[in-house]
């Protein structure tokens, strides 16, 4: 059977499974819609959290990014796992004890103010939509490459599936679908990694394999990789290029951001007991760590394989994956020295970086590009980092079913995260905006109806993001983390650990964190993109790491402002005392 057909079968069967689960577990009350009736077992919740958490960015982009960043890529590995320690130790048990539906619920009650609740809702919607935009591009890439449908049609199919189980099933449907999606995605991630590890090092455990020697030699894989990358003019693979300050801040922004992401926090509202919330965080991190400890191995294998299989190869004899990805525009080749051989080295191959293709083909059969070649270096290959995980099985010449499996896994990762985010958005609109603020008289049935409507609207907007995608998947997602770290995390942390913080302090803190962080990021990413280099950055901190600075500003502003206003009322003190008890 050919790979195309296998992919259709794998994706089709997994989609049928998700829909089946959604019908079986649909929600009938607001309690079930928002927090699955608080009846989810910690292990199931751990898996669902892991699937919710591991997005298209984790599955598709991360290993590719690390493959090209080398040691600098560690920020994603530590940043996206270390946040769970903060969640488990500082937030999850207390928020579960508080026992409401949403994150703005806690902020609104703790800071006894509708304004605080509204500010939290704004931050939450901002964070969630930035994040969801990243997922849709992932869905688009997978559909266009593996199922050879138009990217836009791919996005629409994905949206229909999510619409079906998120709108119908609410949190309950999503949770059980995510358990299935976790199984699909982790299997799809591990199988090719294990295969490649055996092929390259003879070690079946990828985590150990990438520290092992290359097969039939006594050269360590990482040593070889260091040597090859330095010879081609890149930084040695296991050395940093970014400053320690920047790496520190990016890691911190990702960690604190993780702990402040509403769609992750809300998962801990769905378990029966406080002790289960702690357990859930532990299980979630185990399930996440399985993928995250494999990812750097995949990165090292992919970088090595990629260089080995294209360097100094005639274009005509180039492997088929090279041409497949070229045909959808994510790889490009410009024969700078007219020798018909592919040469890959450091630097951008093309002026303007991203290739613009014409309809014609060149003398070797390559797609012609309008861009002028960048003559400051001899690199001839443009490669989109997002494709490394998807292309990896093809590069390593694994059988067709593995490639099909990876496609299904990538879709599972993107859809599960999108669904979780859409649910958080819809809950904050129907519950926090309508029921708790503007329309307190609505009945539970009406609230459920509005929740479903807002889920539908959110899915529609997310679809638009997928059809008109903003930039790189991982970059957009980094924006969401910066904002979560600078707004939601400090408000929650101080809400639990500092009783004296009043509403004035909390609101001023959140607003200043939100404004300063987004101003910095928008300035360097959109308005003055040409200024985006370490010389112009504040203390050498890149936009990706600025969320950490925003968080510190939030803390300082909140504490100072709080000092000038009266202490919170007694019932808030009692509430905080209560959530601190076991």
């Amino acid at each position, binding site marked *: 059977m050919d790979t195309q057909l296998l992919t259709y079968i794998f994706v089709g069967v997994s989609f049928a499974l998700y829909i089946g689960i959604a019908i079986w577990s649909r929600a009938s009350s607001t309690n079930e819609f928002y927090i699955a009736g608080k009846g989810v077992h910690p292990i199931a919740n751990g898996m669902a959290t892991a699937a919710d958490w591991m997005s298209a960015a984790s599955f598709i982009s991360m290993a590719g990014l690390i493959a090209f960043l080398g040691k600098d890529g560690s920020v994603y590995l*530590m940043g996206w796992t270390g946040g*769970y320690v903060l969640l488990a130790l500082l937030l999850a048990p207390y928020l579960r004890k508080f026992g409401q539906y949403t994150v703005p619920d806690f902020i609104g009650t703790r800071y006894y103010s509708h304004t605080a609740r509204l500010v939290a809702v704004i931050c939450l919607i901002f964070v969630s939509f930035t994040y969801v935009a990243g997922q849709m591009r992932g869905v688009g890439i997978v559909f266009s490459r593996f199922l050879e449908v138009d990217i836009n049609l791919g996005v629409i199919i994905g949206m229909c599936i999510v619409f079906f189980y998120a709108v119908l099933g609410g949190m309950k449907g999503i949770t059980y679908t995510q358990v299935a999606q976790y199984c699909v995605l982790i299997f799809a991630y591990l199988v090719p990694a294990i295969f490649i590890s055996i092929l390259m090092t003879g070690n079946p455990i990828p985590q150990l394999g990438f*520290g092992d020697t290359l097969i039939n030699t006594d050269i*360590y894989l990482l040593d070889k990789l260091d040597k090859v990358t330095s010879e081609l003019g890149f930084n040695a693979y296991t050395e940093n290029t970014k400053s320690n300050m920047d790496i520190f801040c990016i890691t911190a922004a990702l960690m604190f951001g993780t702990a402040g992401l509403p769609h992750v926090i809300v998962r801990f509202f769905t378990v029966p007991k406080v002790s289960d919330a*702690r*357990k859930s965080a532990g299980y979630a991190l185990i399930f996440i760590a399985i993928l995250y*400890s494999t990812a*750097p191995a995949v990165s090292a294998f992919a970088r090595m394989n990629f260089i080995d299989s294209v360097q100094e190869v005639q274009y005509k004899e180039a492997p088929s994956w090279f041409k497949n990805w070229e045909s959808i525009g994510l790889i490009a080749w410009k024969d700078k020295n007219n020798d018909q051989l592919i040469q890959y080295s450091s630097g951008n191959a093309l002026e303007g970086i991203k290739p613009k293709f014409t309809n014609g083909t060149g003398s070797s059969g390559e797609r012609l590009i309008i861009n002028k070649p960048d003559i400051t270096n001899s690199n001839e290959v443009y490669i989109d980092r997002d494709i490394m995980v998807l292309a990896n099985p093809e590069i390593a010449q694994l059988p067709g079913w593995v490639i099909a499996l990876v496609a299904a896994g990538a879709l599972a990762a993107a859809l599960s995260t999108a669904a979780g985010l859409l649910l958080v958005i819809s809950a904050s609109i129907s519950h926090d905006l309508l029921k708790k603020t503007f329309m307190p008289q609505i009945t539970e049935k009406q609230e459920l109806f509005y929740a479903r409507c807002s889920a539908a609207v959110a899915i529609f907007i997310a679809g638009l993001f997928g059809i008109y995608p903003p930039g790189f998947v991982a970059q957009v997602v980094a924006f969401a983390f910066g904002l979560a770290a600078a707004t939601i995390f400090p408000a929650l942390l101080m809400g639990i650990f500092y009783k004296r913080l009043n509403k004035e302090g909390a609101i001023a803190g959140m607003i200043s964190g939100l404004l300063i962080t987004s101003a910095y990021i928008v300035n360097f990413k959109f308005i003055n993109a040409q200024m985006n280099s370490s010389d112009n950055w504040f203390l050498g901190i890149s936009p990706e790491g600025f969320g950490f600075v925003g968080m510190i500003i939030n803390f300082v502003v909140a504490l100072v402002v709080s000092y000038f206003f009266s202490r919170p009322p007694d019932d808030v003190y009692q509430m905080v005392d209560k959530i*601190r008890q*076991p």
Partner: protein
Amino acid sequence: MSNNTLCLFKILNNYYSCNNKFMHNNYWRSNLKIVSILLAIWFLVSFGFGIIWSDFLDQFQIGGFKLGFWFAQQGSIYFFVLLIFIYIYLMNKLDKKYKDNTEK
């Protein structure tokens, strides 16, 4: 209810709520202690070994891994998992101790 019994009741009630409050403070303090020790380790294995002292640790090698590189891309993650499970264990123990004490 006679005046005397009411008085006794009040005293007992005060005694217990005061005792309860004392217990809660104790519980909270132990909790803070556990959390701060674990977070110190959390900081050490990620920001410490993985970033600040990573280059220094790179001179040591385990298998094909430089130690600093290993902490940044593998070790920190394993420690994170371990830390959460130690926390779960310690908190369950603390919860139990607290529960036994309040029931006595």
